[in-house]
C-alpha cells in the first residue's frame, strides 16, 4: 500500500477536530485539510525525508485523545517526569491541558499565557503566521487538527523572569493516540522570555506527538527556547519549530533529543531584519534502534544577520542519526556570518549517521563556514586519562560525556542542566560505568 492511500485514513483521524472552535478557525483548518490531501505524508523520495522513512508510522492507526485523564496515577507521573523548575507551568497529558496540574501564578503586566483550546480566538492574529501549512504533510496535519497548546503573548518591553515550562506527558493508551499540540510564542519589541518545552512519559506510551511551534520576534526581542525530548522508546515524535526574526532580535535554541522510536525535529529560522541573530545548539543521543533526525534551515533574508549552529550526536547500538543543517544567504543579504558545526561519535559498528551540512549562498560579502566530523575520541586525551589510572571504558565514558557536555553546558537554567546531564549519563552504555561520577 502506498503512502498516499493512508492520507484519507489520517484525515479521518483528525476530522472531529476540524469543526471545533470559531468559524475563522474552521476555515483555516479546512484549508490545511486540502493542503494535506495534496502533500500527504512525506516519503523518502523527498530530499528532506531521504533518510527518514515514515512508512511504518503511516500504517499505524492513531485515534484522538479523549479528555484529560486526572487519575492519581497520572498525577504522580506528572510529578515524576517534571524537571522541577521554578516556573510558570502548563501541563498537557496526552496533549490535553490539565488545569489541576498546572501553575500559572501571577503574570507580570503585558504577559499572557493562555491554554489554546479555550482561548482559540486570542490566537487568531498569530496562528499559522510563521509556520506555513505546506512546510510538510505533518505541519498541514497539525494545523488541520491541533487539539490544544498554548499562546504566550509578550507585549512590548515585557520581561518574563520566570521560565515558562510546558510539560507534555504521554500515557499508555489502549489505542495509541495522535497528539497534536500547537505552541504559539509572540514577543513584542524588546520583550524577553525563556520557554522550556519538555516531552516525557511512561515507558509503555506508544503514541505519536506531532507538534508545531511558532515563534514571532519583533525588533529587539530576545527568546531562549529549550526543547527537551525524552519520550519513551516506543513513541513517535514529529516536531517542527518556525521562527520569524525582526531587527536586532535574538533567538537561542537548545534542542536535546534523547527519546522516541522515531524522532524528527525541523527548525526553520527566518532572519528578516538587520542585526538579527540565531544560535542553535543541539544534542542527539541514540540507543537501541532509535532513529533521530534533526533538520535545521536558516534563511538569511536581511543584511547583517548572524547564525551559529552547533549540533552533536552520539549513536550507540543500532541507532541511526540524521543531521541536515542548511544555511541560505539570499540575494542582497550582505555582511552575513553563518557558522555551522556538526560532530558525531559512533559507539557501535551497527550505528549509522547521515549528515549533510549545506550552504546556499547568493551574496558575496559573507563569511560562511561549516564543518562536520565523525570519528573517535581523541587518543591523546584517552591516554592522559589512562595514565592517571582510569580504566579504558571509564575513560571513554568520561570523554563521551564531556563531548555531550559541550552542548549541555550552554544551558543556563541549573535545574535543566543538571537533569539533562544525569539523563545523558544514564543513557550512555553501562560499560562506561559513569554512575557516581556525575
Amino acid at each position, binding site marked *: 500500500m502506498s503512502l498516499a492511500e493512508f492520507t484519507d485514513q489520517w484525515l479521518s483521524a483528525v476530522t472531529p477536530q476540524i469543526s471545533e472552535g470559531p468559524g475563522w478557525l474552521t476555515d483555516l483548518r479546512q484549508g490545511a485539510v486540502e493542503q494535506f490531501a495534496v502533500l500527504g505524508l512525506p516519503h523518502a523520495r523527498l*530530499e528532506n525525508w531521504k533518510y527518514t522513512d515514515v512508512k511504518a508510522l503511516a500504517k499505524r492507526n492513531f485515534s484522538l485523545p479523549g479528555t484529560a485523564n486526572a487519575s492519581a496515577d497520572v498525577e504522580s507521573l506528572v510529578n515524576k517526569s517534571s524537571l522541577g523548575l521554578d516556573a510558570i507551568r502548563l501541563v498537557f497529558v496526552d496533549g490535553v491541558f490539565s488545569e489541576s496540574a498546572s501553575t500559572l501564578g501571577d503574570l507580570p503586566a503585558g504577559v499572557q499565557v493562555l491554554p489554546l483550546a479555550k482561548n482559540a480566538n486570542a490566537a487568531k492574529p498569530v496562528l499559522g503566521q510563521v509556520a506555513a501549512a505546506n512546510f510538510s504533510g505533518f505541519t498541514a496535519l497539525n494545523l488541520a487538527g491541533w487539539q490544544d497548546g498554548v499562546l504566550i503573548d509578550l507585549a512590548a518591553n515585557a520581561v518574563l523572569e520566570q521560565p515558562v515550562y510546558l510539560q507534555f506527558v504521554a500515557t499508555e493508551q489502549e489505542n495509541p493516540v495522535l497528539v497534536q499540540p500547537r505552541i504559539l510564542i509572540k514577543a513584542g519589541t524588546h520583550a524577553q522570555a525563556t520557554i522550556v518545552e519538555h516531552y516525557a512519559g511512561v515507558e509503555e506510551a506508544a503514541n505519536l506527538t506531532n507538534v508545531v511551534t511558532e515563534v514571532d520576534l519583533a525588533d529587539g526581542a530576545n527568546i531562549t527556547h529549550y526543547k527537551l525530548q525524552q519520550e519513551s522508546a516506543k513513541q513517535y515524535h514529529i516536531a517542527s519549530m518556525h521562527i520569524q526574526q525582526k531587527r536586532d532580535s535574538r533567538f537561542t535554541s537548545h534542542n536535546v533529543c534523547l527519546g522516541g522510536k522515531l524522532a524528527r525535529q525541523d527548525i526553520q529560522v527566518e532572519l528578516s531584519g538587520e542585526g538579527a541573530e540565531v544560535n542553535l545548539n543541539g544534542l542527539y543521543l541514540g540507543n537501541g534502534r532509535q532513529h533521530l533526525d534533526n533538520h535545521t534551515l536558516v534563511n538569511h533574508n536581511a543584511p547583517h544577520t548572524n547564525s551559529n549552529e552547533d549540533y552533536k550526536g552520539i549513536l550507540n547500538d543500532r541507532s541511526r542519526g540524521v543531521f541536515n543543517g542548511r544555511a541560505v544567504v539570499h*540575494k*542582497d543579504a*550582505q555582511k552575513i556570518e553563518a557558522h555551522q558545526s556538526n560532530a*558525531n561519535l*559512533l*559507539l*557501535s*559498528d*551497527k*550505528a*549509522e*549517521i*547521515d*549528515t*549533510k*551540512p*549545506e*550552504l*546556499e*549562498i*547568493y*551574496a*558575496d*560579502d*559573507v*563569511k*560562511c*563556514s*561549516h*564543518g*562536520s*566530523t*565523525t*570519528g*573517535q575520541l581523541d587518543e591523546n586525551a584517552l591516554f592522559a586519562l589512562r595514565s592517571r589510572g582510569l580504566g579504558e571504558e571509564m575513560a571513554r565514558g568520561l570523554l563521551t560525556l564531556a563531548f555531550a557536555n559541550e552542548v549541555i553546558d550552554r544551558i543556563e537554567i541549573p535545574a535543566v542542566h543538571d537533569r539533562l546531564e544525569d539523563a545523558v549519563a544514564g543513557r550512555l552504555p553501562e560499560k562506561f560505568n559513569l554512575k557516581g561520577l556525575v
Partner: protein
Amino acid sequence: MASQEMEQLVRREYKQGFVTDIESDTAPPGLNEDVIRFISAKKEEPQWMLDWRLAAFEQWKTMAEPDWAHVDFPQVDFQAVSYYSAPKSSEDRPKSLDEVDPKLLETYEKLGIPLHERAALAGVAMDMVFDSVSVTTTFKEQLGEAGVIFCSISEAIREYPDLIKQYLGSVVPVADNFYTALNSAVFSDGSFVFVPKGVTCPMELSTYFRINAENTGQFERTLIICEDNAQVSYLEGCTAPMRDENQLHAAVVELVALENADIKYSTVQNWYPGDEEGKGGIYNFVTKRGECRGDNSKISWTQVETGSAVTWKYPSCVLKGKNSVGEFYSVAVTNNMQQADTGTKMIHIGEGSRSTIISKGISAGRSDQSYRGLVKILPGAKGARNFTQCDSLLIGDQCGAHTFPYQEIGNSTAQVEHEATTSKIGEDQLFYCRQRGISEEDAVNMIVNGFCKDVFKELPMEFAVEAEALLNVSLEGAVG
C-alpha cells in the same frame, strides 16, 4: 580599475571560438534504432556491440532525466540532436601528420597546439579526437613496446573484444543514470587504455577533445584498465568552438584499478560556456567513476572546470580493495551565466580505505555553482578515513555558491571530516597587493591562483601552467 578597461575585459570573447569548415558525415537529427545501427555500422562493430547498444537504448527509453541538480536550463530535445558526426576523411585514415587534412591542422594551430612540436616537446602521446573519430595517434609504437594499449574505443572493440566485454559497463552500469544509458546507446568514440601487470606507462597519455560539427553532441566513452602493479597518468583537455545552439555532451569514463595499481586522471575542461547572456554553450553531463578493485590500489581525479554552460559531473571512486585510496582535486570556475553542479562520491567498502576531497569553487558574474559530494562508509570499511575540504570564493554579488555534502557513515572506526568555507576575496589581501604596486586584476589572479594551489599542484606540470592561464582568462572581467 578604469571602467572602460573593465568593459573591454567583460566583453572579451571566447578566444577559441571558430568553426572549421569540414564536410561532416553526419547522421540526421533524432534518435532511434536506425541511428544506432548507423553508428555501429560506421564503426564496423561486431554484432554483440550493436546488441549492447540497442539494449541500452531500450533502457534509456524507460528512464527520466535527473532533476535534482541545482541547475536550470531548457529541456533538451533529444530528437533534435544529431548523434554522429565524423570528418569525411575517416574512410581512409591518415597514417601520419602529413596525411592529415590541412584544415584540421590549421584548427590545432589556432588552438595553440602545433601537434608535432608540442607532442614531441612535452613527451606526450596524443590520441586526437576531432569530433568523433580518432584522427591521428602518435607515440603508439613506443607504448606498444611497453605493452600498453592506447587506442580509440572503436578500435579496441574490434581488436580487443575480450577486454571490452569484460570491462565495458562494469564500473558504470548501462542504466546507472539517464545519460549513461544514452551514452551507452550512441557513444561514438573515446579512448581505451590498458596497462598490463607490472607496467608503468612510459609517458603521460593525453587526448584533446574538440567538438566541431554544428548540432552534434559528442558522446565519448573512455575505459582505462590498470592491472596489478601497473601505473598510468591520463590527461584530458577540451576546447570547443563558439556556437549559438546548445550542444549536448554526455561522456562516460570508467577506470579499473587492480591490486597496487595507480591511475591518475586529469581533466582540463574548457567547452564553450555560452556568451554573457547565457546564449549557447555546452551542456556537459558526464559520468566518471573509478573502481579500486584490488588491495592498495589508487585512483586520483584532478579536474579544472572552466567551461560549459551547464555542468553535471561527479567523478567518483568505489574503494573496494583493502587500503585502497581515492582522491578528488577540483577547481571549478563559473562566470557570466554558467551553472555547475559538480563534486564527487567516495564509496568506502574495503578495510582501511582512505579518501581525500579538495574542492575549490570560484563563482563570478551571474553564475551558480554547487559542490555536491557523497562520502559513504559501509559497515565493513573498518578504519576508513575521509578528509573533505570545499571552499568557495565569490566574486561579485550576483553569483551563487552552494555546498551539499552528503555523509553516510555506518562504521564506528571510521573517521570522516568535512569542512567548508565561503567568502569573497579579502579586502585586506587586495589592499596589501595594491599597495605594492600590483594591479587589481593581477592581484585577484594571484589570490585566486593561491586559493587553487592545493589542486594545481596535483596536475602534471604542463597542465598546471595551462590551468593557471585558463583560470586567469576565465575570470577576466569578473573583477572590480
